[in-house]
């Protein structure tokens, strides 16, 4: 027996009911997915929050340390003796320092004849 086809309106309504009657999903599986989804943004927000707290605590500790120790640090700066470089300071003896052979070999640039001959004061008068 030939079935009378439904109207277009009925077909549109029938599509909704035909597929709505499919088996329902497992609610526990969907709830597990929901928990995983909602965990993500919460964990990220907590992470940012702890970074902020850590930065503030570190800043406050640094400021406190400077407030307590500022005077002693400045005092130490004043008490530091002025160190005169031996190259600048005048020699205590009248004898000019004679450079050792190894020093001369290291410091003299290769290929400079004046340096190879040595200082003039060691030459004999003729």
């Amino acid at each position, binding site marked *: 027996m030939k079935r009378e*086809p439904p109207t277009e309106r009925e*077909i*549109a309504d029938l599509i909704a009911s*035909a*597929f709505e*009657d*499919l088996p329902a*999903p497992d609610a526990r599986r*969907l709830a597990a997915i929901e928990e995983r*989804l909602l965990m993500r943004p919460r964990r990220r927000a907590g992470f940012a929050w702890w970074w902020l707290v850590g930065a503030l605590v570190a800043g406050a500790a640094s400021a406190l340390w400077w407030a307590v120790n500022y005077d002693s640090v400045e005092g130490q700066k004043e008490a530091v003796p002025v160190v005169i470089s031996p190259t600048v300071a005048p020699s205590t003896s009248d004898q000019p320092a004679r450079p050792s052979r190894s020093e001369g070999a290291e410091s003299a640039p290769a290929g400079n004849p004046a340096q190879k001959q040595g200082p003039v004061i060691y030459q004999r008068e003729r």
Partner: protein
Amino acid sequence: MRDPVELIRLFCRDGDAGAFREFYRSQSPRLWKFLVARGSNPEDAYDLVSEAFLRFVKTVCRDPRAPRAFLYRIATNLRIDALRRARARPTEPLPEEIADNSDESVREQAYHLRELVGRLPEREQNLLLLRYWIGLSHQEVAHALDLPEGTVRRQCAELIAKLRECWGEDETGTTD
């Protein structure tokens, strides 16, 4: 139940997790059913729902005007990707076990209609189900399937007429 657009707006504006939860609970069972109706294995459908919502939650706030269309767009694209990956695997037939909440003739009609819809090309099935089952507007379907709105309107009318034409052609699977 609150409007899905409003829920997602609350979620994006205030980070309201409760609003997102409500949206998820209203949409996820139907999205799972949609994926199963479109031929996904029920187990795979859970994975697709999870992945679709994960991508949805990451990107929906860029444009929260049509969240349902956006969700179904992600889900249909994921399903196409999954089909490409497992091309050798045949499409899952629709489950036989249907909720028995209607009389015999209505169930027969529903079975016949599911068969007819199942013969249509992929895109036309998506279009019919999103419009007449999921209840998206023409504009939302256009957004979900990346089609012009006018094309969606025209194709919906054509497909319903086509189903009506095909209705009496194959009566072998039904009894009166």
